[in-house]
């Protein structure tokens, strides 16, 4: 498992005094059908965009809370790393975007009948958000509304 000691000194100092946003109460949805029948969507916080999309703004104080919709038929290899943090090795995701946005892997599981279907649209956001107000009040509800519209049963969320 990753440890905070891997992070740069300035980040570790920042995190020492950071107040994490505690989820309370913890919502808990019931699985309505077997996984093999579920439509599954992805949410990645790797800051990925497709060519032609507006990149995430790495200069915003508190972080860029916007998100991008990634269609299910997107070429995963074309995803562009827009994550602003230099606190982790970007080499893995740049050589294989499936590492942080496993769209092809999900398609393979669907083809094998291990999940019911792949959602038509997925979500990409920037994980490096320290001021979480807009994320909670606007971005997360927008993503949720989109997934509800697409009748997604299960969402897998991938940090980086």
């Amino acid at each position, binding site marked *: 498992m990753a440890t905070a000691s891997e992070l740069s000194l300035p980040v570790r100092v920042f995190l020492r005094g950071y107040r994490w946003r505690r989820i309370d109460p913890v919502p808990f949805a019931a699985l309505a059908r077997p996984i093999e029948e579920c439509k599954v969507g992805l949410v990645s916080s790797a800051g990925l965009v497709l060519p032609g999309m507006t990149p995430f703004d790495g200069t915003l104080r508190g972080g860029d809370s916007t998100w991008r919709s990634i269609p299910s038929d997107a070429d995963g290899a074309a995803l562009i790393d827009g994550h602003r943090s230099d606190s982790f090795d970007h080499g893995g995701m740049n050589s294989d975007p499936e590492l942080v946005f496993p769209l092809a892997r999900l398609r393979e599981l669907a083809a094998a009948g291990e999940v019911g279907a792949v959602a038509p649209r997925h979500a990409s956001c920037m994980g490096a958000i320290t001021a979480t107000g807009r994320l909670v009040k606007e971005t997360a509800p927008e*993503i*949720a509304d989109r997934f*509800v519209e697409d009748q997604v049963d299960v969402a897998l969320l991938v940090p980086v």
Partner: protein
Amino acid sequence: MCNQTVGLVAAELERHGIVTVALQLLRSVAEKVRPPRSLCVPFAHGYPLDTPGDAERQRAVLRGALGVAALPGPGPVLVDLPVGSGA
């Protein structure tokens, strides 16, 4: 911060009736933020599905996450993916 971000999005999805599993690279952050369902993975920052180019390994991590989706509540449910786990 990524661990918190996906946890907060997961909570909103669950409020909308969608079952979620958030991979987590830092267990300590998952314990503080409390996403509804988490799979703590034993990998480094930047490598949430382990090894670049290893499709079978990446599918195994996804299978592990899907297994957490089927676990009963109440949340937070926090599960560790065993080191070397094939599923």
